[in-house]
């Protein structure tokens, strides 16, 4: 399928926004301005963008501890995200959630989740609700391949399949569960697992945003039409550590492997494609980047200057 040029440029913009956002998060950590830790999405941008661009604004997503990319791709704004990461009042969750719990109801983001696999039930329930309300919404459940270890995933895939729920499970296989290679933790054949439960299953190159997008489009529309759930496996790689503090990685993954994967940087791949198809030249791309940099800088500025929540808020929002 040939994607329209505006679309490819939009992908470029979104992926670059995520990249720059995450680089800034790393800086915030390194300069001790961010409380706690964060898990960077750098290297995996094509997946969030390719999938979310196949969704309506009112479609649902659930996300993970590595969730900034999903959140931005679904339409969240940079400033309020930074504010959340810093625990500030204008943050998406008024500082109560932080990096691992950002949620944005307005863009259909039901929340990041710090329990591996923890959102599989939530996403499936959202799909069930969409069907019951005949809203024609679809739910997308993002998770790392580590979540294949959680039994909950199989429980809900079974129900999604039985009841043909409008859901797409997106497995971001970045090769590692924290510090352990997924092949040491994952037996048999990953794609056969959802297949055995009756899900339409596709494995693709997660660095190729075009492939991700066209596949997601097909699977999402299929789900929307009531033809049942699907499972999309995207091969990818996180270019940084498991979290911002994971600097010395040699003991669990070879430098050489990191370099090889970096040659398949999804943003550079897309840039190459744009240039080859003469949809943009180096200068146009640099222009986009500059613009985004200003957005990111303004967002950080905003967050750094934003107030903390009133201490009394600690007791608010326990009950609705």
């Amino acid at each position, binding site marked *: 399928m040939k994607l329209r040029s505006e679309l490819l440029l939009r992908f470029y913009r979104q992926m670059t926004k995520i990249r720059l956002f995450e680089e800034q998060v790393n800086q915030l950590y390194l300069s001790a301005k961010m*409380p706690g830790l964060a898990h960077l999405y750098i290297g995996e941008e094509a997946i969030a963008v390719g999938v979310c661009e196949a969704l309506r604004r009112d479609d649902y997503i*659930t996300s993970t501890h590595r969730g900034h990319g999903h959140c931005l791709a679904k339409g969240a704004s940079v400033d309020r995200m930074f504010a959340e990461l810093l625990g500030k009042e204008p943050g998406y969750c008024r*500082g109560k959630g932080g990096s691992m719990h950002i*949620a944005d109801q307005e863009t259909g983001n039901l929340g990041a989740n710090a329990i591996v696999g923890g959102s599989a039930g*939530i996403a499936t329930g959202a799909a069930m609700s969409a069907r019951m309300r005949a809203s024609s919404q679809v739910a997308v459940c993002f998770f790392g391949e580590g979540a294949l270890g959680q039994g*909950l995933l199989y429980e809900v895939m079974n129900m999604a399949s039985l009841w043909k729920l409008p859901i797409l499970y997106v497995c971001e296989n970045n090769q590692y569960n924290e510090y352990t290679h997924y092949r040491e933790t994952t037996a048999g054949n990953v794609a056969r697992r959802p297949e055995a439960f009756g899900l339409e299953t596709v494995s693709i190159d997660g660095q190729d945003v075009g492939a991700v997008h066209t596949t997601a489009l097909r699977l999402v529309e299929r789900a929307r039409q009531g033809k049942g759930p699907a499972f999309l496996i995207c091969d990818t790689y996180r270019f940084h550590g498991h979290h911002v503090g994971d600097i010395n990685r040699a003991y669990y993954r070879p430098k050489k492997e990191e370099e090889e994967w970096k040659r398949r940087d999804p943003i550079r791949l897309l840039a190459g494609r744009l240039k080859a198809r003469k949809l943009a030249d180096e200068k146009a791309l640099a222009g986009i980047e500059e613009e985004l940099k200003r957005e990111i800088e303004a967002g950080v500025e905003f967050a750094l200057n934003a107030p*903390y929540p009133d201490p009394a808020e600690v007791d608010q929002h326990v009950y609705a």
Partner: protein
Amino acid sequence: MKAPAPTTPHATGASREMTFAEAIREALAEEMRRDPTVFIIGEDVAEAGTPFKVLSGLVEEFGTGRVIDSPISEAGIAGLGVGAAMTGMRPVVDIMFGDFVTLIMDQIVNQAAKIHYMSGGKLKVPMVLRTTLGATRRSAAQHSQSLHAWLSHVPGLKVVLPSNPYDAKGLLKSAIRDDNPVVFFEDKMMYQLKGPVPAGDYTIPLGVAEIRRAGKDITLVATSSMVQVALSAADMLDKGGIGAEVIDVRTTAPLDKATIIESAKKTSRAVVLDEGYEGYSVIAEGAFYYLDAPVKRMGARSVPVPFSPVLEDQTVPTPESVVEAAKKLCGKL
């Protein structure tokens, strides 16, 4: 066992004698008629109407689209319930035995209970989780536990323990209409207990205890079927010249502390009766006659732990807060 007459006469419909199970069923049916977003999901809930037959007849009225038989996947259906509740539905998730809450703690405690808070008040999870408690059914160790204390211990959850058919109906309606996750525990030995239940709509607020019987000598604070035990005991005590006041807690979260404390102040003596395990309150019980002040318990603040440092730092005891408490107890503040 016979249920006490209701002392909260705010229902309008004519009263009928009904079992506890029938009262639950009627509450569900009325709520499902009233609100199309209410649905039931659980194992053998449809044609079978659960092993205790509590839900018999509902699938006939509401169809399999709203009374949904699920696989034997407790964690899965709890998770589905959370997601559906966050997106506009009001699921009633049926967990056949209370002993199986062990399987859903992550979905209930790490997800349902915290989502409203973690999202800074934006998302909400209006789901009800119905399950059972209670022993003496000869069902052995994995089908007889009363695990409501775990859930009462989790900020963000409400926990309801009805003691009679009247309350069962009114409390379940409130639970379904509540915007928070509510865990509703039914003593399986009470399903056949009969009592008056008004026809039509009425609710009983969550968080309000009920004095089932007045007395001046001792307070019996009880939950669920233990209220029935307390009432029997009160009758027996009466004959011995001891007037027992029986308080039906009705919800352990929120807990109506005021009613309980007021009664204890009046009677000066109390027994707390609950079918869960007890075992702590060591000093308050073991050194009572030596104490000059109440035992002060300091723990985590009763909120999910917030991310923002200015908030998080208020959630744990510090040397300063301990010093303040200690000075107060010693009368030096």
